[in-house]
């Protein structure tokens, strides 16, 4: 028999390291003579899209084209330390360092532009710098950059961003452990085959407070990817050990979901800005995975009235729990 159920999982999660653990980041931005921009940062983009977001932040601040920015990241030979890609901190901490570096270098550009245009209400946009009140007074970003170089001005800036928190009270455990938190709820709908113990996830709805989605489709990608990892965690993933040796050492034996196992995932981006993130943004990486397994297990419980306390809820384990419940009911 097939039974359906719906479950909810909710979470909050501290972004960054918190608990007085060092949490620093940095970025160096240099404006070239032709108006192109070189950004250097030690932050690793291992697929989550942080280089894209940094590029957007710098482009936004300087009013230049996205493709005029060259990103040099995660090269220990040339880039300043930005801390690791972990703790869902990258957009929140390094994103802010990008913003600060861009704003610092913009000050030099701004002063030269003020002098050249004789105006101070300047806007950096569309590869131009112009007066808000009198847009005819303008200079291209390229010309402005060239001016700075001709004058031999310092047109490279490094920003340092430190969000290391104070520790909590060692006696009471009270205090502000993290500088900000992410919040999320996910809903899963499942169909369980009571004869085989096979769980099919029919859909997942995921609502995540990300502060500000600097790149909404990137955020959706993170949410979907996280939810899929959460599905694997709930239903299949298991490290099998024998006398301390891991037995399932390939992805043929350590089962993660395939594209054919992935249901419709409906992402809802909630934007409640945080004061110290870039444009109010905070992290989404790990939060995307945290509520999924609880939502799935609650959905299974809703379908079968069986509370699962051990993972994975795979074919054999779920089948056994269903049989035990049947025996208990007899």
């Amino acid at each position, binding site marked *: 028999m097939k039974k359906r159920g719906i479950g909810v999982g909710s979470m909050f999660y501290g972004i960054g390291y918190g608990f007085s653990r060092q949490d620093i980041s940095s970025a160096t931005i240099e404006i070239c003579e032709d108006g192109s921009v070189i950004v250097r940062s030690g932050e690793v983009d291992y697929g989550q899209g942080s280089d894209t977001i940094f590029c957007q932040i710098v482009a936004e601040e300087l009013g230049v084209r996205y493709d005029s920015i060259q990103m040099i990241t995660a090269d220990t030979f040339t880039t300043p330390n930005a801390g690791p890609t972990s703790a869902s901190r990258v957009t929140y901490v390094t994103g802010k360092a990008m913003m600060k570096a861009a704003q610092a270098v913009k000050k030099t550009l701004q002063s030269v532009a003020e002098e050249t245009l004789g105006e101070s209400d300047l806007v950096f946009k569309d590869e131009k710098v112009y007066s808000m009140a009198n847009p005819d007074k303008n200079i291209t970003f390229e010309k402005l950059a060239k001016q700075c170089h001709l004058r031999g001005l310092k047109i490279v800036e490094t920003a340092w961003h430190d969000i290391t928190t104070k520790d909590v009270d060692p006696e009471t455990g009270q205090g502000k452990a993290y500088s900000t938190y992410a919040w999320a709820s996910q809903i899963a709908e499942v169909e369980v085959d009571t*004869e085989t113990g096979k769980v099919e996830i029919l859909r997942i709805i995921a609502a995540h407070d990300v502060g500000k989605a600097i790149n909404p489709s990137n955020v959706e990608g993170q949410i979907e990817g996280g939810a899929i990892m959460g599905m694997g965690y709930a239903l299949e993933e298991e490290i099998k050990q024998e006398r301390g040796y891991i037995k399932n050492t390939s992805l043929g034996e350590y089962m993660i979901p395939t*594209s054919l196992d992935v249901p419709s995932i409906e992402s809802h981006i909630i934007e409640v800005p945080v004061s110290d993130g870039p444009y109010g943004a905070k992290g989404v990486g790990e939060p995307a995975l945290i509520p999924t397994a609880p939502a799935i297990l609650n959905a299974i419980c809703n379908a079968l009235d069986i509370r699962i306390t051990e993972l994975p809820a795979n074919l054999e384990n779920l*089948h056994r729990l269903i049989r035990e419940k049947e025996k208990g009911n007899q």
Partner: protein
Amino acid sequence: MQSYEFYTAESVEDCLGYLFEKKEVCQVIAGGTDLIPGLRNESIRPTFVLNILEIESMRGVIENDDEIRIGPTTTFTEMIESEILNRTLPLLVEAAKYVGGPQIRNRGTIGGNIATASPAADVLPAVLALDGVLEIQSKQAGSRFLTLAKAIEAPYKIRLQPDEIITGILINKLPPGTRCGYEKLGRRNAMARARMNMSMVIHLDEKGTISDLRIVPGAVLPVAQRFQEAEKILLGKKPDPQLLETAAEALAEKILKITGIRWSTEYKLPVIKSIFKWVFNRLVFKN
């Protein structure tokens, strides 16, 4: 890193000549979806690897009067796309669809699936249910024919001499009105080894009596086979829930008798019974 002699045969004669000349076991590459991982993790350490994928006559589906001939290097994708198989032996098409994922189905072949003789094979049990016959050739003895049922000796082992190779899989067409069903239970919906599968062929005569029945559960025994004990219970009878239950019991009993109690028994026995009953009911009542 391993080193071995790799030979690509250009024709069946060339292939048979090579096997005769080497006189020891050659690893045959008929797709490589099992062989290549085995070479990589060094669970297979061959001296000779014989590639038969370039032999045109070993590939493709041919329809004769009352028989279908499938070349051993016909890929699962080619089986799925074969007009002949879709029309005459849809069971094979269904089974082939459950193999791995698209990349595996593009490489993997029916002959490779049979010769590997994995207890968890997807297509091999369907060939058993269709009473498939292997055409086997060698340079010295020429052709001989062996039913697949008799060809499987042990898990991962079929009865082939070192100088022999499968050159065709022969399956009789089914009488009109024959129904076929296939089901696979895996841990996920693609790229999954069968936890269990079920191949079934059934024919009901005009009175609604079961006149032909072939039941082959997969991944429950070391060597896949027809379950004639269960078939006999239903043959010559009209479909009936009580009889079906008795047949399901017989199926489970046979598995228990052969495998004894293993860690998976608690799961597999009740579930294979369920899968058996689903496929049966689907074929009998929903066609």
